[in-house]
């Protein structure tokens, strides 16, 4: 073996000539500090005119998931399934029942003061906090710091919270009472055991 070939730089190793951002040879020079701000912009402008031959493509870090409907029928030679032309989205209760995801809360009903409106003990109420409470809506109200679910009645400036059960009295909101409408009930989930 010829020992003279050992050591030293390998041929073709290192950065390729003129492969820097200027695409030509560069040189280190000393510059008076007072001139740095004058010279730098010149270099920046020059730099921006030298076109890079590499374009950086950033991958989306948060790709959204796309669900694709699955073809349920097997692919067969011969007749394709007549249903494949009629593929539709599956039904999702969330999109049906919830319109403002960030403003929607689930609460559990207690008692039977709203039985006439179909709200039974233990039912889950879907409450949308983003909706404005119009007269006639079923609302989650806070009266003097306590929660209650009732039907809201507004008439000529009088506000009443009505129960839907003759055994319960309506709550008339007087001048001193503090009433906050916490949210509007949009659905009730009643599960049969």
């Amino acid at each position, binding site marked *: 073996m010829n020992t003279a070939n050992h050591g030293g730089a390998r041929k073709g190793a290192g950065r390729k000539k003129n492969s820097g951002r200027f695409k030509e040879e560069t040189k280190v020079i000393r510059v008076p500090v007072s001139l740095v701000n004058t010279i730098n912009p010149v270099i920046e402008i020059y730099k921006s005119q030298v076109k890079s031959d590499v374009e950086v493509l950033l991958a989306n870090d948060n790709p959204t998931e796309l669900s694709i409907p699955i073809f349920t029928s097997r692919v067969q030679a011969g007749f394709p399934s007549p249903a494949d032309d009629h593929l539709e989205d599956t039904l999702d209760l969330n999109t049906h029942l919830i319109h403002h*995801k*960030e*403003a929607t809360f*689930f609460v*559990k*009903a207690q008692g039977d003061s709203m039985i006439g409106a179909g709200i039974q003990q233990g039912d889950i109420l879907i409450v949308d*906090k*983003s909706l404005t409470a119009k007269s006639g809506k079923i609302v989650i109200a806070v009266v*003097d*710091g306590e929660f209650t679910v009732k039907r809201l009645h507004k008439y000529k400036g009088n506000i009443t919270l009505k129960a839907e059960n003759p055994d319960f009295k309506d709550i008339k909101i007087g001048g001193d009472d503090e009433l906050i409408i916490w949210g509007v009930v949009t659905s009730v989930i009643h599960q049969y055991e």
Partner: protein
Amino acid sequence: MNNKTKFALVDCNNFYASCERVFEPKLERKPIVVLSNNDGCIIARSNEAKALGIKMGAPFFKVKDLVVKNNVVVKSSNYPLYGDMSSRVMKIIGEYSPVQEVYSIDESFIDLEKLPFNLMSHMQSLRQRVKNWTGIPVCVGVGSTKVLAKLANRIAKKYPRFDGVFDIDELPYERYCKLLQSVEVGDLWGVGRQSAKKLNRIGVHTSYDFYQSDVGVIETLLGVNGKRIHQELYGNSCIPMESIPPTRKQIVSSRSFGCDLKDFDELNQALTNLTRKAVNKLNNHKLSTTTITVFIYTNPHKKDKPCVHLSKTIGMTSAIQDQSQIIPLVSQILRLIYKPGYSFYKGGLVLGNLAKNYQQQDLFSMNQNSPSQIIEHKKSNTIRSVNSKFNESIKYASELGNNKWLPRADFKSNRYTTSWGELLII
């Protein structure tokens, strides 16, 4: 200061206390404090509690008298609730600008540059919407840089007459200087306690002193970050938005135990549970780990008992991500470091050197695609999905026991938004 850059910092008012109030409206206007994990220290206060002189970070036992005397409402921290409310608030804020940086659980920057709206009414509408949709009150600070937006937020919070939204760029110069004089330099965004100390030593106490200081001096003292903050006070935006959170480098899962633990099985029970939490995080971020550190401490404040700090780190040749692999390893490390006779008060683990899943395998390790590996992986995935649906119902045998380690949470509110069994009852 009429630059073209424009940022807003949206900050929730007393976030943890506000979350508690959403589901317990009778706490409105009452003093509330929220305690850290294991009910140790005060980590959040309502305005009323602040007014009573209860300090941030104070150990609970030290302010107990004050709390009892003033009927202060005490809550253990309820992170599932705060986390869910935070993500709702952040989503709504994100609708108000194409560029959002979620800065912490209760703060978010948004970029307002070039938005074709009246910014003041745009921000008022944001504030109203967050309040109406979630019940959480927020304040908005607006400025031509992030440091200024953060400063503006203080003003928006402090003075009710601004209705929760304040644009610092609208201040006349003299008023701006006055404002800087009233803010300690350590309260500027990005100036930490150490930096504030350094600045105090050269006679810089207020933000105005800092503003007036020579930029060269600041850079020598605090480095480029200090220079950036200085520049930002002049309205030159130097700190860009970071809308993509950096990838995690490590996952730490540790707890102070509810009471001191001596027994190996009790420690192992705690560590298994903490490991499962860490591995869930690992899997949610689609990461895998190559180093595991396990540590257990005795209480350094108990001077009468011997004090030890035991820990050990192991490295692996190939990255792993399944709990069936990690949990037994943690147990083994614990067995190596455990010494009988001590009372341990805190423990945990660190999964380090994280990488995206499915990197190159070690030549000598079992093939990733070998049938047994695939079965293991599928098993872990199944356990994970069952647990996310059914409230952590599948546990490791080593996790079962007397639950002595569980941190104290004596005053915890319900997980109203994340657990079917704990819904608000009306």
